[in-house]
């Protein structure tokens, strides 16, 4: 009986796994077609469409714009989010709960609205679309994630450890740099990872805050696939996935990714 249930669960989990990765796999395979149209099965194997992406000045400059934006966003979101998380942790629990709700509210708000709101705001201020305006929009989107992950990282830091550092002679800064920071590092890395990828993938906000002179990669991808069904779009989307995987790999080197996916606790518990 128990064995039967175990098999059922295994089967179910396997099925769900396939469903989850299916779209990605379809696009990755389709992007390798040698044909002129998007085909699945691809009917061959070729890097021809990747070549087209990497040889195109327009696509490469869009990619460069996106990477610049994502880097700015990551830095800004960390600079805003880490102190906010530390303040929330120190605050009384009632105040903290309210502020957490406020800070995390962008998770609940349609990104179109954030784009629209900032567009109006920048218009009023006579600020012209640029890498910076897109980055500001994405930072609003990314900061809640940083706060969330850093708070989760801090939750694993027993305050007794900071007291122990204090009574052993460590001032606030030494306590933070030698005890708190190393123990919450995972949270910061996870926040940075998500910030980067959110910025890289966003279309809705970038659409409002960029213009013809500043076209991020994902916006260009969106407008491309809206008008064309060629394999170039699949190749571009695959490039996005590959960049995400590269960033993930770097983060894994720094802090171990098992932690990011949640629940099962940090390695230091």
């Amino acid at each position, binding site marked *: 009986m128990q064995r039967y249930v175990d098999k059922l669960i295994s089967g179910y989990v396997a099925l769900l796994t396939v469903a989850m990765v299916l779209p990605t796999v379809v696009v990755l395979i389709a992007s390798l077609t040698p044909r002129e149209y998007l085909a699945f099965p691809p009917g061959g194997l070729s890097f021809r469409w990747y070549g087209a992406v990497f040889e195109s000045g327009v696509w490469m400059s869009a990619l460069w714009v996106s990477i610049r934006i994502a880097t700015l966003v990551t830095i800004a979101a960390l600079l805003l989010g880490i102190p906010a998380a530390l303040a929330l942790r120190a605050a009384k629990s009632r105040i903290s709960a309210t502020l957490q709700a406020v800070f995390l509210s962008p998770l609940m708000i349609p990104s179109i609205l954030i784009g629209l709101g900032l567009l109006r705001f920048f218009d009023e201020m006579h600020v012209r679309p640029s890498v910076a305006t897109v980055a500001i929009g994405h930072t609003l989107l990314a900061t809640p994630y940083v706060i969330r992950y850093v708070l989760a990282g801090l939750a694993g830091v027993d305050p007794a450890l900071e007291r122990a550092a*204090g009574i*052993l*002679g*460590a001032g606030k800064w030494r306590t933070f740099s030698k005890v708190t920071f190393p123990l919450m590092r995972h949270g910061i890395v996870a926040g940075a990872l998500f910030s980067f990828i959110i910025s890289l993938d966003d279309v809705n906000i970038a659409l409002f805050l960029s213009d013809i002179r500043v076209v991020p990669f994902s916006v260009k991808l969106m407008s491309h696939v809206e008008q064309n069904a060629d394999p170039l779009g699949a190749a571009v989307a695959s490039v996005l996935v590959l960049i995400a995987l590269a960033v993930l790999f770097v983060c894994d080197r720094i802090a171990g990714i098992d932690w990011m996916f949640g629940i099962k606790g940090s390695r230091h518990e």
Partner: protein
Amino acid sequence: MSLPLTSQVFLEVEDLALSYGKSAFGLAGASFSARKGEVIALLGPSGCGKTTLLNLIAGFLVPDHGSIRVAGRSLRGVPPHRRDMAMVFQNYALFPHLSVEKNVAFGLEAHQVPRQEREPRIADALAMVGLSDSRTRYPRQLSGGQQQRVALARAMVVRPSILLLDEPLSNLDTLLRKSMREEIRQILDRTGITAVLVTHDQEEALVVADRILLMSNGKIEQIGTPEEIYERPRTEFGARFMAVENIMAGSVCSGDTAGTTVNTAIGQFKCTPCDVVTGANIKIAVRPERMHIVAATSGSQSYENRVTGRVVRSTYHGTYRRLLIAVHGMELIVHAPVSSDDSEYSGDVQLTWRPADTHVLLQ
């Protein structure tokens, strides 16, 4: 309640208070002092304010009023890291990301001890707790007892002026707890350090401390040596907490410097002398192991206080047998030595105890 100030007084706590709400448990005007090298135990049940008092001394909490002085210097406004203390925490609070030696080195680095001095001090501290072989291991690789030792080494290595210990043994097994408390006592003796120990375990306080502060409800109930606290509890709380289980209400019959005579529901008893007026309602307390059984029939040695009762229940505790004895509707607890013939601990028995073991409690 504080000791007279002498040139030897090292730690002075005066009228220290913190209202409930600022900490989990409040503290109402505690005063005491400790001489250099003395080990003080803060003893009491959970919620009595002992940990609050320790955290105030450490500087983790800021008192509403009152003062703490070490070697005459006030600690008002001095943050924990400038108090020159060290602490052993209840859950050890070892840094999980640092190896044993890095944990021990932490305080030396924080105190900016010169690099060449650190290594021998780390080696000494680890040798002291018998963990020289575990330098490169991480806290999670150690047993509870080993973690406890690392915590002790980490605290001692900075040579603090005062060592604070917050229930250091409460997470250990009974057997390990017993051997560790002996070891801690020896290390404290050897280093001559001044220490404040928080504990809820009576025997731990008796064994480790030079003086005990018995606390209850945010107040100090009694200060004294282990012998005083154990042998001469002054209040009903103190008596109950120190396992003086036989407490009887009565009224004073007569009293002089030689002793007091008290009338209770089960008879008239001679007690230790005290300044209570004749006729006053008081309580008297006798420790279970100080009541002795004399089989009702035999005529063996007995003391001035005597009652007759009936054994209701008898439980075996290894070193002693715990007897519940009914005496005129009252129940007394007696811890009797285990003898090869336990039949004498049944049926009707005569109980006897010394006036010196019969304490009059303050109301």
